């Protein structure tokens, strides 16, 4: 049996003329200070991370795998730590005008602070139609299961997408995409008019459209801008003794604009900036006032945020970085009026 497996493996390798990239390993330490609007104290974290990436290529495609872990200790609270692990594999095949991609991954955490243990397997596939022109088409399917030990939003997510790309050159590319998503919640129960949980579970349908463009600015800078709008139709409701049963409380329309800019004038320096602004309009939900009573106007939330990072290396092995990120959401409803700020630094050894 072992011999058979050996020969099959050898035949597979020989038939595709496989060449491996040299694996890339990273190991790093980091520290960060976090402050949020709902907490009066700063949280100080120190973190350890490590990952490895390997890709094998052959004449008509490649396959690759990745394994990584991040562990953060909260120095402000001796008993608190969080971790996140990821394992992924993907296969990409090129056949004439078509390309095919299959991918799967598992993200998990033994302790994610907010959710306890966390487990998320993902899988997906894409078919690309790439004629000999700047235009291309892509069909996508992605699936996910989210399990959260201490939280009630466990769910199965399935999404389907189609996108058309226009890539005249490396200097500029653009795409438009449409995506449909269904989410089945397994623990999120609906309320009845008496405020009791029923056996009916939450079920969401989402539709989104996205347009994005990106390219180079001079030799050493890259940019990308994405505009997105979406509609969420959910059967979820909420109940409070103050206002009773509020049906369709999660139905909403969203708009989002995000951008990314990165600049590396020398291999030793990297500067990156990301930003976003988003607007949520809840179609069937009123904003609560400071006393928890229901107001007259629909709930709206305006969110904005960004990250600025600076990286430096002297020898292309030890990479230093500092970053700062923030977000702010504005809303008449105090629950949604919040902010957060994080500043950190890290050193990563790449080999």
């Amino acid at each position, binding site marked *: 049996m072992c011999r058979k497996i050996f020969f099959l493996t050898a035949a597979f390798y020989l038939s595709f003329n496989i*060449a491996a*990239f*040299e694996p*890339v390993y*990273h190991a790093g330490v980091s520290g960060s200070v976090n402050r949020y609007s709902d907490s009066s104290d700063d949280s100080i974290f120190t973190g350890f991370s490590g990952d490895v*990436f390997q*890709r094998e*290529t052959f*004449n008509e495609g*490649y396959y*690759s795998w*990745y394994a990584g872990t991040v562990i953060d200790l909260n120095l402000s609270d001796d008993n608190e730590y969080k971790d996140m692990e990821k394992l992924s594999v993907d296969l*990409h095949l*090129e056949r004439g005008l078509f390309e095919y991609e299959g991918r799967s991954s598992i993200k998990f955490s033994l302790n994610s602070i907010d959710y306890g243990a966390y487990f998320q397997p993902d899988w997906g596939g894409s078919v690309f139609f*790439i004629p000999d022109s700047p235009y291309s088409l892509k069909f996508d399917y992605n699936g996910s299961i989210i399990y959260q030990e201490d939280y009630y939003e466990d769910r199965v997510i399935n999404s389907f997408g189609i996108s058309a790309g226009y*890539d005249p*050159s*490396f*200097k500029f590319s653009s795409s438009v995409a449409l995506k449909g998503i269904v989410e089945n919640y397994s623990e999120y129960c609906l309320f009845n008019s008496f405020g009791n949980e029923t056996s009916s579970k939450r079920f969401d349908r989402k539709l989104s459209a996205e347009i994005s463009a990106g390219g*180079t600015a001079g*030799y*050493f*800078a*890259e940019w990308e801008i994405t505009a997105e709008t979406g509609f969420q139709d959910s059967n979820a409701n909420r109940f409070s003794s103050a206002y009773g049963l509020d049906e369709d409380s999660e139905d909403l329309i969203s708009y989002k604009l995000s951008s990314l800019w*990165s*600049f*590396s*004038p*020398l*291999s*030793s320096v*990297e500067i*990156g900036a990301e930003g976003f602004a988003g607007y949520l309009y809840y179609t069937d939900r009123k904003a609560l006032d400071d006393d928890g009573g229901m107001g007259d106007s629909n709930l709206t939330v305006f969110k904005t945020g960004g990250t600025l990072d600076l*990286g430096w*290396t002297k020898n*292309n*092995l030890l*990479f230093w970085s500092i970053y700062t990120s923030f977000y702010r959401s504005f809303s008449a409803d105090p629950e949604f009026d919040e902010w957060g700020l994080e500043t950190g630094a890290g050193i*990563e050894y*790449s*080999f």
Partner: protein
Amino acid sequence: MNSSPERYTAAAGTEAAVYKFHIIFIFFTVILHFSLFPQSAFSDSIDLIRSSLEKSEYNKQGIGEVMDLCIDADLRGIPLEFIKPRIDEALSKKVSSSKLAEVLVNEIGTLDKARSVIEKISDADSFLRQKNLWQRTAVLFSAGADEDTAAELVKMNIQNPDRYIPSTSLFVSLVKWGLPDMTALSLVKAVLDSSLKEDDYSGIISLFIRSRRSNIPPEKFAARITGELGSVRTFRQLEKRVLQ
């Protein structure tokens, strides 16, 4: 008087021979003149440069210093059309004559060096005939390349000089970004051997910019690209294969 037809024929033959001799003499004089002073015979550039300098704020000594360099370049067979844009730029930016002279000395030196590198390579005459290729070779020296590297880049493009400008642009941008000359040279060779379109050559640097965000050591990433270039038809395919 001998007015026989033979005499007339003989006289006419002598005149024709003298006439022919004059024509040949003038022809060879012109050829010799153009060989010794190839540019000065064709170019009004020296007068144009003098006129521009005289209209500038430079004093006589400054004008003389710049003109001497131009005349020297002209005598050395370096086309003044290479130098004139530098002078125009310096005048428009009001750069001092001594600074301009310094720039010109460097420019003339690299052009001279480029010519001597090209002349040593057999079948590379087109790189001197096409002045933009000669000038591009000089740019390589300004970017810090040594003579062996410049010669290697000329040799790589000898069969297809049209790819010289895009491939050397890639080389210069990779070296400026921080790749060692030899790594950049191997990468350019792999690019020239690949099916990538010339317009996409410069896209290679954008891959390095993106790999930098993932802290991938550039030498390792260069090896990845070099290894994959033989298997891809388009830049997009390369992008997918090498980026994580």
